[in-house]
C-alpha cells in the first residue's frame, strides 16, 4: 500500500481540516481555559463530531458507525493537533471504541458502540498509576468478591475522567506489578459507590483526572475480555492510542512549524527579514526534515494497524517516539524563533508547546518507546 493518503482519506482530511479550523480553532481552547469550563470541551463541538461521523470512525457500520480504519482516525487526530482542539475524540472514539470493538462481548458492543458513534457516551481508559506510563506496573487490585470483583487502587492521567460515562479500568486479578500476566479490564460506572474522581487542571488545558477506587464492587459481566489475560489486548488498544496521539502530535508540530516559517518571512531584525539568516534557515530545514520523517512513520503505523493489527507494536513505538521527538523540537524552535512574543500567553505558540509536552507523555514518551524497541530487538 502506498505510503500516502488515498483519495477518500485526503477528502476526509480536507473536511476535518475546514471543520476544525472553523469550529474548534485555538481560540476555542482558550475559551475553555479562561472560562474554567466545567466540562473542558465544547458540547456543541462534540455534537458536530457526531454529525460529521467522526465519533463513529472506528465503530462498525453494524453498530451505527462509519466502519473506517485507523488511517482515517489518524487523519482526524492530525487536524485536532493543528487546532489544539480539546474533545473526547481520542479517549472515546479512538481508544474506547477500539477496546470495546476488539475485546468486548456482543452485549457490550451493542450497548456502547452505538452510543459512541452517536456522540452520546464518553468513555475513557484508565491505565496509568505512577508518573510514567507502563501498563505492566499496574498495581490496582481486583479481588474476587461474590459473583464479581472488588476493585481498589488509584489511576492517573485518565483523559476526560470527570466527564466520562464509563471507564475501562485495568486492574490486577493476579500476578504482581511488573508482570504482564494477571491483568484484567473492567467496565466501571463512574457513579458507582467508592469511585472518587478528581479533575486535574493540566498544563495543556486538556481534560484529565485522577481516579480513586475504594472497594468498588462490580459484577462478573463488567469484565471486558478475558480475566488475567488483558495485557496483550490492552497493548493492542494502547498501540491504537499511541499511533493516534502520534498523528495528533505531528499536527501540533507541523502547525507550530508552519507558523514559525511564516513568522521568519515577516519579522524584521537589524533591517532584514529574519528568514534570511542562514543559521535559522538551516535549523528550519532540519526541522522540516524531522517532521517529514515523523509523518512517514505515523502513517505507516496507522496503515499497519489497518492491515495487520497484531504486528503494529514496533511501528507504533517508532511513530510515537519519532513524532514526539520531532514535535518537541518543533515547539522549542517555534518559541525560540518567535523570541519574546513566543513567550507571552497572548501568543499561541506556547499553547502548542504545552500540548506537545502532554501528548509526548501520554501512553509512553519517546524514551519509553525507544526502550521498548530496544527490548523487542533483543539488545
Amino acid at each position, binding site marked *: 500500500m502506498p505510503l500516502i493518503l488515498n483519495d477518500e482519506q485526503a477528502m476526509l482530511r480536507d473536511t476535518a481540516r475546514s471543520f476544525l479550523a472553523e469550529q474548534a480553532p485555538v481560540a476555542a481552547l482558550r475559551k475553555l481555559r479562561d472560562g474554567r469550563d466545567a466540562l473542558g470541551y465544547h458540547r456543541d463541538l462534540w455534537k458536530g463530531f457526531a454529525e460529521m461521523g467522526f465519533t463513529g470512525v472506528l465503530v462498525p457500520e453494524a453498530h451505527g458507525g462509519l466502519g473506517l480504519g485507523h488511517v482515517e482516525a489518524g487523519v482526524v487526530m492530525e487536524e485536532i493537533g493543528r487546532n489544539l482542539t480539546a474533545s473526547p475524540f481520542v479517549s472515546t472514539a479512538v481508544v474506547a471504541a477500539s477496546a470495546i470493538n476488539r475485546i468486548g462481548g456482543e452485549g457490550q458492543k451493542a450497548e456502547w458502540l452505538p452510543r459512541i458513534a452517536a456522540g452520546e457516551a464518553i468513555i475513557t481508559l484508565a491505565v496509568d498509576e505512577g*508518573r510514567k506510563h507502563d501498563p505492566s506496573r499496574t498495581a490496582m487490585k481486583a479481588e474476587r468478591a461474590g459473583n464479581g470483583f472488588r476493585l481498589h487502587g488509584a489511576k492517573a*492521567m485518565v483523559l476526560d475522567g470527570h466527564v466520562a460515562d464509563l471507564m475501562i479500568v485495568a486492574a490486577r486479578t493476579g500476578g504482581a506489578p511488573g508482570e504482564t500476566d494477571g491483568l484484567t479490564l473492567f467496565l466501571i460506572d463512574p457513579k458507582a459507590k467508592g469511585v472518587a474522581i478528581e479533575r486535574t487542571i493540566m*498544563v495543556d488545558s486538556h481534560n484529565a483526572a485522577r481516579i480513586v477506587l475504594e472497594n468498588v464492587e462490580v459484577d462478573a459481566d463488567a469484565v471486558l475480555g478475558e480475566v488475567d489475560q488483558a495485557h496483550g489486548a490492552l497493548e493492542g488498544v494502547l498501540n491504537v492510542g499511541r499511533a493516534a496521539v502520534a498523528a495528533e502530535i505531528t499536527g501540533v508540530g507541523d502547525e507550530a512549524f508552519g507558523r514559525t516559517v511564516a513568522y521568519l518571512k515577516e519579522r524584521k531584525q537589524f533591517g532584514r527579514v529574519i528568514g534570511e539568516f542562514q543559521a535559522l534557515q538551516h535549523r528550519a530545514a532540519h526541522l522540516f526534515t524531522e517532521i517529514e520523517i515523523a509523518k512517514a512513520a505515523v502513517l505507516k503505523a496507522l496503515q499497519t494497524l489497518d492491515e495487520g493489527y497484531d504486528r503494529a507494536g514496533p511501528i507504533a513505538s517508532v511513530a510515537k517516539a519519532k513524532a514526539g521527538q520531532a514535535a518537541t523540537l518543533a515547539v*522549542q524552535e517555534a518559541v525560540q524563533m518567535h523570541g519574546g512574543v513566543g*513567550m507571552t500567553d497572548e501568543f499561541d505558540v506556547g499553547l502548542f508547546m*504545552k500540548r506537545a509536552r502532554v501528548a509526548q507523555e501520554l501512553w509512553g514518551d519517546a524514551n519509553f518507546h525507544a526502550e521498548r524497541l530496544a527490548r523487542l530487538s533483543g539488545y
Partner: protein
Amino acid sequence: MADLESFRAETRAWLEANCPPEMRLPLKDEEDRVWGGRNAKFSSPAQKQWLDAMAAKGWTAPEWPTAYGGGGLSREEAKVLRSEMRRINARSPLDSFGIWMLGPALLQYGTEEQKQHFLPPIVRGEIRWCQGYSEPGAGSDLASLQTRAEDKGDHWLVNGQKVWTSYADKADWIFCLVRTDPTAPKHEGISFVLFDMTTPGVSTKPIVLISGKSPFCETFFDDVVVPKENLVGTLNRGWDVAKHLLTHEREMISNMGMDMASLGEVAKKAIGLDAQGRLDDPLLRADIARFDVDALAFRLAIERTGDLAKAKQGHPALSSMLKYYGAELNKRRHELMMAAGGADALEWESERSQGGTPARSWLRTKANSIEGGTSEVQLNIIAKRLLNLPGA
C-alpha cells in the same frame, strides 16, 4: 594561602553560626527567592534574618568595596565564601538586579556621589531595581530604541515605552536607556539614566507569560521628570554602560539553575531504581548522565572565565559563551525535570505539583535563550569577536 585558609575557617564558623537551617534547603520554587526592596516580602523570618546577617558583613556583594557597603573581599576570598556556602547548601540571601547588573556599572561609570548614594542600600537589599532596555518590536536589535529624553534645562523629560521590564511592577527604581540625541546614528545618542518608579507618569502593565506568571511588564513613560544628576556615565554614551551591564546580565543568566537540586536525585525520587540500582528509565538516565557531565564542566568554565578575567587573560566576549551555554543548559535541565516528573509534572494547579511549579519553571526557562540577548546573538558575538570570522 595560609591567610586564605584562615579566612576559610572563619567563614565556615560564621556561616555555621549565622545561616539558619531553613536557608540550607533547596529553593521550593521561584516564589521562594528574596528580592528585597521597599516592599520586601519574606516567606519566613529566617529569610530576613539571613539577609540582614549577610548584608551586615557586606556579603550580599562580597567583592564590592567596604566603602560602599560591600564585603571588600578579594576574588579568592569570594570564591572561598561561595564554596563554603555551597558546602552547607546555603541559599543566596538576596536576588538583586542592583547587585548583579547595576552595581558593577555604577562602580565603573558612576560618580562618587552616585556610588555613595545608591550602592549601600543595594547591598542591604533596600532598593529593588528593574531594567528598561527593550522596546516593543525591537527584539534583539536593542539599539533601535525610541524612548526619548528631552533636555529641559534642569531635568530630562522622558516619554516612551519599554517592554520585558523584569518585575517593573515590583521595582522601586529603574535603570533605563533613553535617546538623548535623536539625530545621531543608532548606537550613539543613547544615555543611561536612573529614576524612581513612583515618579508621576510612570505606569506598568504585567505581561502574562506562557508559564502563567508575570515577571515582566510593559512600562510606559508619560512626561516623566528625571533629575539631571541621575545620568550615569557620559551624555549620549549610554550604549557603553549598557554593554558593560549586559555582560553582567549574561553572567547572571548563565548561572541559572546552578542552585537547583541535582537531576539525578529528583529523578530517583520520582521514578525509582531498578534491580541493578540504576534509574528505572534507561534512556532518561543516559540523558541525565550526559547532562551532569556538561553541567559540572560548565560550572568550572564559569569559574575559569572569571579567573581568566582576573588574570587579564580573558576576553569580554567570553560572557557571551557562558550566556549561550548556560541558557541552553538550563532549558535542557528543565526538559529533563519534566521527563522525570512525568504525569505529576503536567499538572498546573494542584497541591501535588505545588501549583504547577515544575511545568511553570520549565516554561519560564524557555526565555533564558531569548532574554539578555538571544542565543543567536551570543553565537554571532562569539563568531565575530572571539573567532574573528568575516562578516559576522
